[in-house]
C-alpha cells in the first residue's frame, strides 16, 4: 500500500504504529477512531463553507447578477465574513421562550445532517463506518431533523413559528414516505443496506435500472431539504420566516448551515444510490480519484437542485401535499412492486437491464395516461363556473 494509492490508510497505519510504541492498544484504537470521526465530520462542515459561496455564485448567475465578488478573489472569503458577522451578533433569546429546548434545536438540526456523513463511502475502503443497515440509518437520522424543527417552532412561543413548524413537519413526514419507498429500490437491486456494498454492486449504475425511482428520490429529497419549489417551511409572505423566526445570530446561522449542508448531502446520496458513488476509471487504484468522482457526481445533483430552485416558483401547500400523496407515493409503490417482481424473474439473466427499463417505461406510460384522463375530467369540471360573491358598497 503506497502513499499515492491510498494516503489515508497509509497515514492511519503510520499513526497506529507511532502511537503503539508508547500507548496501550485500546487507547491507540480509540485515538485512531477519534481522528477518523473528526476527519469525516469536518469534511462536510469545511465543504459547506465553500458550498455557500458556490451556491450564491450560481444563484447569482441564474439571475444575471455577479454574486459575491468583494471579499477575497472571486468573493471566496465572503462566507468567512458572514460567519464573523453572525458570531458577533447579539444572541437574543425571547423572554417567553422555552430556553433549553430553544437552544438545543439548532444544534440538533446540524447534528442530524452531519450524522449522514458517518456512512458515506468516499472511495474503496474509505468510509466512516460501513454499517450493515446504512440506508435505514440515513432515514432514521433524518427524523432528528424533523424533531429539531418541531422543537424550534414550539419553544419560540410564537404563533407563526409554531404554525411554520407544523407545516414544515407535515411536509417533511409526507415526503419521507415516497423517499423511504424509493430507497427500497436500490436496496432491492443491491441486495444490501450497506453503503459500501451499494456502490460496489453498481456495475451498471442504478439510474439505468430505475430511472423513475431516481427522479422520485431527487424530488422528495428536495422537499426534505425544503428548497424551492417546496420551501413552504420559510414562506416569508405567509408565515413570517417559519420555525426560525425568533432565532438570531449564530443559532439562525446554524439552521442555514444545516440546510446548505443537507442540500449537498442529498446530491451525494443521489450519486451513491443511483450514479455509482465513487466508481469511475482508475478509482480502484488511486483512491483519491474516487473521492473526486463522488464529489463531482454529488455536485451534479446539487447543481440540479439549484437549477430547480432558480427556475420554479413556490407551490401552494395543498398542491404540494396532493402532489406527494396522490402522485409520488402511488408511483413509488408501483415502481417498487414492478422492480421486485421483474428483478426476481429476470435478475440473474442478461435480460435484467432491458426488462427493468421496459418496466419503468410502462409504469411511466400508465401514469401519463392516468394523468391525462384525470386532468381532462378536471378541466371539464372547471369549465362550469361557480357563482362568485360580488362586492357591494356598504
Amino acid at each position, binding site marked *: 500500500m503506497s502513499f499515492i494509492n491510498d494516503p489515508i490508510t497509509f497515514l492511519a497505519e503510520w499513526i497506529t504504529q507511532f502511537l503503539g510504541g508508547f500507548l496501550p492498544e485500546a487507547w491507540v484504537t480509540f485515538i485512531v*477512531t*477519534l481522528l477518523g470521526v473528526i476527519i469525516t465530520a469536518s469534511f462536510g462542515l469545511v465543504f459547506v463553507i465553500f458550498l455557500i459561496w458556490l451556491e450564491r455564485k450560481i444563484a447569482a448567475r441564474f439571475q444575471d447578477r455577479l454574486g459575491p465578488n468583494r471579499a477575497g478573489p472571486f468573493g471566496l472569503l465572503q462566507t468567512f465574513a458572514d*460567519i464573523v458577522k453572525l458570531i458577533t451578533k447579539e444572541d437574543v433569546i425571547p423572554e417567553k421562550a422555552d430556553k433549553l429546548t430553544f437552544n438545543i434545536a439548532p444544534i440538533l438540526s*446540524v447534528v442530524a445532517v452531519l450524522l449522514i456523513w458517518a456512512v458515506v463511502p468516499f472511495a474503496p475502503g474509505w468510509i466512516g463506518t460501513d454499517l450493515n*443497515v446504512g440506508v435505514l440509518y440515513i432515514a432514521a437520522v433524518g427524523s432528528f431533523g424533523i424533531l429539531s424543527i418541531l422543537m424550534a417552532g414550539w419553544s419560540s412561543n*410564537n404563533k407563526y413559528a409554531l404554525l411554520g413548524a407544523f407545516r414544515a413537519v*407535515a411536509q417533511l413526514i409526507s415526503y419521507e414516505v415516497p423517499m*423511504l419507498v424509493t430507497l427500497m429500490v436500490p436496496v432491492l437491486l443491491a441486495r444490501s443496506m450497506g453503503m459500501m456494498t451499494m456502490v460496489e454492486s453498481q456495475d451498471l449504475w442504478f439510474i439505468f435500472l430505475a430511472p423513475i425511482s431516481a427522479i422520485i428520490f431527487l424530488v422528495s429529497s428536495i422537499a426534505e431539504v425544503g428548497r424551492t419549489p417546496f420551501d413552504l417551511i420559510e414562506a416569508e409572505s405567509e408565515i413570517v420566516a417559519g420555525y426560525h423566526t425568533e432565532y438570531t445570530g449564530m443559532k439562525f446561522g446554524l439552521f442555514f448551515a444545516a440546510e446548505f449542508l443537507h442540500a449537498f448531502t442529498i446530491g451525494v446520496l443521489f450519486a451513491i444510490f443511483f450514479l455509482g458513488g465513487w466508481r469511475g476509471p482508475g478509482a480502484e487504484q488511486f483512491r483519491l480519484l474516487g473521492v473526486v468522482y463522488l464529489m463531482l457526481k454529488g455536485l451534479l445533483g446539487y447543481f440540479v437542485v439549484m437549477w430547480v430552485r432558480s427556475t420554479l416558483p413556490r407551490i401552494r401547500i395543498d398542491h404540494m401535499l396532493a402532489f406527494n400523496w396522490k402522485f409520488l407515493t402511488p408511483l413509488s409503490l408501483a415502481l417498487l412492486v414492478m422492480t421486485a417482481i421483474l428483478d426476481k424473474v429476470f435478475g440473474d439473466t442478461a435480460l435484467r437491464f432491458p426488462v427493468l427499463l421496459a418496466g419503468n417505461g410502462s409504469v411511466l406510460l400508465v401514469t401519463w395516461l392516468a394523468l391525462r384522463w384525470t386532468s381532462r375530467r378536471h378541466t371539464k369540471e372547471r369549465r362550469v363556473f361557480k357563482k362568485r360573491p360580488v362586492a357591494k358598497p356598504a
Partner: protein
Amino acid sequence: MLDHWIFIGIFIAIAAVFPLLPIVLARFVAPRKPNPIKLDTYECGMETVGDTWVQFKVQYYIYALVFLVFDIETAFLFPWAVAFDALPLFAVLEGVLFILILAGCLLYCWGKGALEWS
C-alpha cells in the same frame, strides 16, 4: 459489529461539539445588552395578540397517521429487500401482497378524502 456503533457514538458526540463551538464563541464575542422590548416575542412584527396555542386542524394528525403506517412498513420491507436473493418467487409475492395491502391503506384514505388539505 459493535465497533461500527462505537464509531457512530463518537460521531454523535463530535457532531454535537461542532455546532456548539460557534455558539460558545459567540458568547464571548457578541454583545449582550438585553432589555424587555428586545426580549419580547417578535411574532410577525406586530404585538402578540391572544394565546400562542392556537388550535390546529386535525389534518396534520391525519398526515402523521398515514406516515406512521408507511414508516412501520419499512421496518418489515427493508429486511425483505436485503434477503431478496435467497427468496423464492412465492416469498417475493408475499412481500408484494404486503405492499398492496398498504397501497389499500392509501387508496382508502384517498377515497375518503382524508388526503385533502382543506
